[in-house]
């Protein structure tokens, strides 16, 4: 296929992904709205895991804690959650299709400008969610991740849209594959953590249909533990690329400054989690501030501040 139909196909895939994510969100929302309410199993009290050996699966990780009111979740709600999961996977495939066809249309790595970058981040965020879901049940986050991804794609299409085309010479390097891919992956995970963080703050104590604070905190921490080394790597790869392209590995260009601030922010979160008096709410706020820095770096720096990086045109 020649470039133009491929580029059009890519745009169609993006629209399809938005719709699928929205449908998936409805499914997840059904499950959450009609599912049982959860008590806020206090994050401090360590969950005791009774173990019975030889008596079947000892403790499924998502088994209801004994002290939860055991009101049955209606069948349609459970089905809604499952349907949401299936739709999310199809949306994920459409999102992937959009990236691959775009890449084929422009014959380079498809993250050379804001539009492509945001589409890829939405993909990474959904990947982070679905990937985690394979091992640990975090379906309770599904609806919110879907909203974030759909909003992100919508923003990309409405505000950042750039038609398929070549990039400036400085971006034509294998480093884009290494540096930007790592940054995208890490950002996807940070989006997952940020979503949990917002829910954590929104959720009051006590009975609520929202997931418990302990679950949210755990999901956020797990994502950041993966994302932090990835982000570290992305920053270092960026420095290596800058060393090749601009003749210095670190020059406090605005994008570099904000990557650094983001990095320090998440390091502060990791410290806050192990500092007496900072666990829980304070650590979550630190995490969200770091997340805001990340978003500002992604969007704000490109739009408001001039710098060497700004050629990734909006």
């Amino acid at each position: 296929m020649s470039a133009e139909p491929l580029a059009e196909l890519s745009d169609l895939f993006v629209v399809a992904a938005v719709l699928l994510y929205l449908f998936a969100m409805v499914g997840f929302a059904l499950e959450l709205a009609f599912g049982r309410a959860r008590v806020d199993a206090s994050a401090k009290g360590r969950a005791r895991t009774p173990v019975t050996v030889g008596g079947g699966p000892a403790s499924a990780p998502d088994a209801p804690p004994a002290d939860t009111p055991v009101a049955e979740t209606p069948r349609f709600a459970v089905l809604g959650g499952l349907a949401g999961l299936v739709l999310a996977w199809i949306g994920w495939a459409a999102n992937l299709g959009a990236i691959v066809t775009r890449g084929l249309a422009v014959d380079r790595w498809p993250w050379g400008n804001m539009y492509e970058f945001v589409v890829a981040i939405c993909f990474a965020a959904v990947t982070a969610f679905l990937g985690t879901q394979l091992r640990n049940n975090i379906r309770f986050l599904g609806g919110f991740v879907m909203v974030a991804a759909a909003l992100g794609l919508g923003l990309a299409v409405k505000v950042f849209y750039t038609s398929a085309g070549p990039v400036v010479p400085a971006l034509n390097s294998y480093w884009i594959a290494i540096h930007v891919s790592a940054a995208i992956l890490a950002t996807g995970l940070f989006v997952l953590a940020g979503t949990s963080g917002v829910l954590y703050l929104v959720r009051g104590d006590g009975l609520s249909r929202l997931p418990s604070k302990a679950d949210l905190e755990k999901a956020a921490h797990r994502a950041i533990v993966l994302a932090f080394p990835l982000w570290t790597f992305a920053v270092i790869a960026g420095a290596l690329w800058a060393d090749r392209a601009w003749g210095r590995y670190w020059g406090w260009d605005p994008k570099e400054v904000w990557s650094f601030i983001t990095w320090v922010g998440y390091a502060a979160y990791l410290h806050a989690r192990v500092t007496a008096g900072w666990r829980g709410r304070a650590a979550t706020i630190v995490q969200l501030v770091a997340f805001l820095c990340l978003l500002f770096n992604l969007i704000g720096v490109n739009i408001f501040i001039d710098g060497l990086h700004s050629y990734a045109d909006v």
Partner: protein
Amino acid sequence: MSVGELEKERESKPAGMGPVGWLRWSWRTLTSMKTALILLFLFALASVPGSLVPQRSVEPDQVARFYQDDPGLAEWYDRFQLFDVFTSVWFAAIYLLLFTSLIGCIIPRTTTYLRELRRKPPAAPRNLTRLPHSAAFDGALTADEAARRLRKLRFRVETGDGWVAAEKGYLRETGNLLFHISLLGVLVAVGFGSLYGYRGNVLIAEGDGFANTVATYDRFIPGPQVSAESLEPFSFDLTDFRATYQVEGEKRGQELDYSAYLKVTDTPGAAPRDYELKVNEPLEVDGTQTYLIGHGYAPVFRVTDGKGQVAFEGAVPCLIADKPTLTSECVVKVPDAQPSPLGFLMRFLPTSVPLTDGSYASAFPGAIQPGVEVLGAFSGDLGMGSGEPRSVYELAPPELMKKLKPLVMGKDVPKPLAPGESIDLPGGAGKLEFVEVKEWMTLQIAYDPGRLPALLAASMATISIVFSLVIRRRRVWVRVKDGSVEVGGLTRTEGSAAGFAEEFDDIVKVLAAGDKDER
């Protein structure tokens, strides 16, 4: 070591004490986690102005403009070193405190760590069912057998009378300490590089050459420990420069690629070699890197003065006025022209096309139909004899500008000159000829002995943080008595209790497997 223990150890208050006590208390406070956390916040916060206020090291021209627009505010900014955030005293104060805190934290933790490495896992607590993870089953497991099985799971094991204590996950602390040490390594490497390295910029037109000596640079920024002799003595000529642009579509005119063709002489007297310098492919000569940063046009002009002598001939680098079309502004100064010095202001259009209103503009950045518009020709004192440095992009200082005598104004030359064309100045003052088009490139040449150590330290930080974050420190105890077995487990890592629950189940299964798998 658990952080809780650390905290307790450090929360002691300064109770009526002398200077030594105060010192000790300050040191403790400085090296506490809470202080480290606050310093981390300050560190991040302190970098913010560095991205909002133009920085001298990044955009010196923006700083100059700031001074022009608002001298009062600029003065104040400068007082607080806001134009040099990352080399400012207060920024340095923050990171030095942070790194002192870091050292103060690493040393005691390293000694504890080394002690722990040699220590045996602690004996089993009396009541294993009180532990966060516990299990009990009946079986003929002996303590020795339990120890053997735990060892097979790569636990470090200690046995006693009817009990086994096992622990693993020491790599977590190893990773964590290495990570923090690597951060110190990065700081030291960066510091070393800025002491012993240098950086410089130079602009070169096609046909010209460069030799790596301080004098040839347009701008040279040496580290405090760099001497003129320490520059690597290489040289090169720019034989050709080629740029290609997108010809069609919405992105018409966007740069696709550009290359500078060099003849490089690595050491004086060595045979020259060819090198194609491109954006992401710097030239390296023995640790000194040469980078292609930018490019533009340098039309060649020949000026004949009133006496018929060629008073100037050469390529004149023009400043880019409009990036997408590479419309550029050129200044030619001919101080040696007789009877009076001459000066020209011109505009270079790489692809000159007429507009409907009779003016001309560049339609494309490539030099398809190059043209030079003469905006003005002047005679009179250009102020070049005064010995003060003058910008090559400015005809004369403003006070002299007013006194110059205009010979030709823009309207006198209705059509841009094509290569080979010339104009005669009125009154026999001379002739300006646009000979041909050349291109210039700007280079950055840098030597930084800290870059490799910095890379090594940063890579080590990345690898060790993975260990620090992913590995779980955990202990398992087994107590056997009269055919019944109790197992207890504890993870000493925040937030990984859930993950450990699964692992604990598996451990218990291995312990309870009885003799079934022992044939």
